């Protein structure tokens, strides 16, 4: 996997964060704002990160896409200086995030079990703004995060979507250059998710660099410039959303059959199969050989449908292909 430079026009259009700097300084700004080298981290027996290399480029929205337990949150923690890697290195704005210096340029929306509920939205943001050297004016934070209407409510009185917006506000209030959004829309309904997406797009328009983790492929597709697919602590695929989709696009076969689900699963080329009401849904790389095999085994096969796989199925195919490769290599 090679590193492509951001096209120059993209840097200039996107990057407003150092608009006040002399042009020469702007040109010299390097493309990479954060990177990791051979990052390894385990919790006891569980390997969270396995030799992970990544680079976050200035002004991009990079999505880390992966199932639960893929190591996304651990990676964010390492880049924020919250967890120490076992080996390998992480660098954010050219320094080790553990030094405690770089946090003034970072914002983070993390998954939190419980936020102090008795403080009002305004009070939470007033406090977090005070941590940063050059925070946004409070009203601007409220406006971007959609908190203006609820700024005088206590955190404990808010709905799930509103709570997420407060955490989003906490991430942006310091006017950081690099933002980490860890599963920002998990548990939100469709409407709240769309709202969060539009708020994230405001950050991109302002030239911020964003690292987003998600396990929704459509979210990564909607927001990201670049997607890294993570599985079991390692990068299994990297590319633009279009590339990721085209690489992963398999076919989906739907049919009713007298065959047992185990038997279908054993057919070569079947990535996964699930029973859906009285029909089976198969994810495959190529449909024709599988259909041929199915018809041979079950002449009464009916209701046959072959479609392009959806995004979630594509994602499944990506991570499963990788697993198969890994097994083959051993």
């Amino acid at each position, binding site marked *: 996997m090679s590193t492509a430079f951001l096209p120059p026009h993209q840097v200039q259009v996107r990057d407003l964060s150092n608009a006040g700097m002399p042009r020469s300084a702007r040109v010299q700004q*390097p493309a990479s704002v954060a990177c990791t080298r051979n990052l390894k981290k385990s919790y006891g027996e569980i390997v969270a990160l396995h030799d992970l290399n990544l680079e976050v480029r200035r002004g991009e929205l990079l999505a880390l896409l992966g199932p639960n337990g893929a190591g996304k949150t651990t990676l964010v*923690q390492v880049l924020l200086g919250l967890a120490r890697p076992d080996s390998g290195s992480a660098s954010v704005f050219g320094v080790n995030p553990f030094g405690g210096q770089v946090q003034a340029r970072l914002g*983070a929306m993390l998954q*939190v*079990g419980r936020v102090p509920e008795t403080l009002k939205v305004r009070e939470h943001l007033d406090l977090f703004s*005070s941590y940063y050297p050059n925070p946004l004016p409070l009203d601007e934070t409220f406006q971007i995060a959609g908190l203006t209407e609820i700024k005088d409510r*206590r955190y404990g009185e808010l709905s799930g979507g509103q709570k997420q917006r407060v955490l989003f506000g906490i991430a942006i209030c310091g006017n950081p250059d690099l933002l980490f959004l860890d599963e920002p829309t998990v548990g939100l309904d469709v409407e709240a998710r769309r709202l969060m997406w539009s708020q994230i797009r405001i950050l991109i328009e302002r030239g911020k660099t964003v690292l987003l983790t998600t396990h929704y492929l459509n979210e990564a597709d909607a927001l990201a410039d670049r997607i890294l697919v993570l599985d079991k602590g390692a990068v299994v695929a*990297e590319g633009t959303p279009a590339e990721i989709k085209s690489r992963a696009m398999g076919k989906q076969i739907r049919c009713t059959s007298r065959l047992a689900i185990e038997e279908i699963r054993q057919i070569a080329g079947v990535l996964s199969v699930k029973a859906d009401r009285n029909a089976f849904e198969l994810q495959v790389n190529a449909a024709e050989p599988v259909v041929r095999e199915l018809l041979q085994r079950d002449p009464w096969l009916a209701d046959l449908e072959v479609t392009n796989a959806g995004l979630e199925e594509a994602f499944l195919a990506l991570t499963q292909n990788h697993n198969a490769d890994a097994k083959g290599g051993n």
Partner: protein
Amino acid sequence: MATTTFPAVLAVPRRSLSRTIALYAKEAKYELINKTRIPVYALSTIAIPLMFYVLFGIVLGNASDRRDNATYMLATMGCFGTMAVALFGFGVSLAMERGQGWLQVKRASPMPVSAYFLAKLFAAVVFSTVIMLLLLSVGIAFGGVRLPFATAVELVGILVAGSIPFSAMGLAIGYFAKPNSAPAVVNLIYLPMSFCSGLWIPLSVLPHGLRALATILPPYHLSQLALNAVGMAPNPTPAWGHVEALLACTLLFLGLAAWGYRRDEGKLYG
């Protein structure tokens, strides 16, 4: 992924002095606001010592030595109150905020960790001052307590300063207890400890073994300092011995907490 990248130059704008002061003040202010808005916390830390004082110090005393009893218990229940505030307000709230991920959100920001801890200490100091003033008022109004103004100030000062060793203890508990079990852990530690230190029943009526045990317990040393101030220490020992013991406790618990803090960095889960 073979990449050749040049690290971005780190340019971190520094926080000005006035902004730094404002930060510490805001952290303390919101910690206090947060605590006063939790009725369970405000009520239990203030009402329980007050209730014990009314029961043990005023209602149960003999008519003949009612005034002495009320003065004695003012010192020991004040110590009990200070301890409750520091162990619950510092220990339990730290354990919860740490265990539920809130401390992590704060640590991901440029907040100086010292601001977080000093704010909790500040809240403990304010709450113990309130408790002491309430106990003192009740003692004067209903227990016949009469203290020279300077003595009363000294007593309140000693007990409020006692927030420091117990906050250190709370800090250590906060780094080792789980959020759900922290209240139980604190109760298991501080109720027996206050009994064994003679806060409810004077040490002189406790068995010998317990009396020896008391000398290694921090509430014993704080209560002796407070009793010294009101002239009621059973065997007045030099105050510096108790101060040293409390200092040693503080350092021990700070050391434990520092170990827990380091351990956290490696253990974060997610």
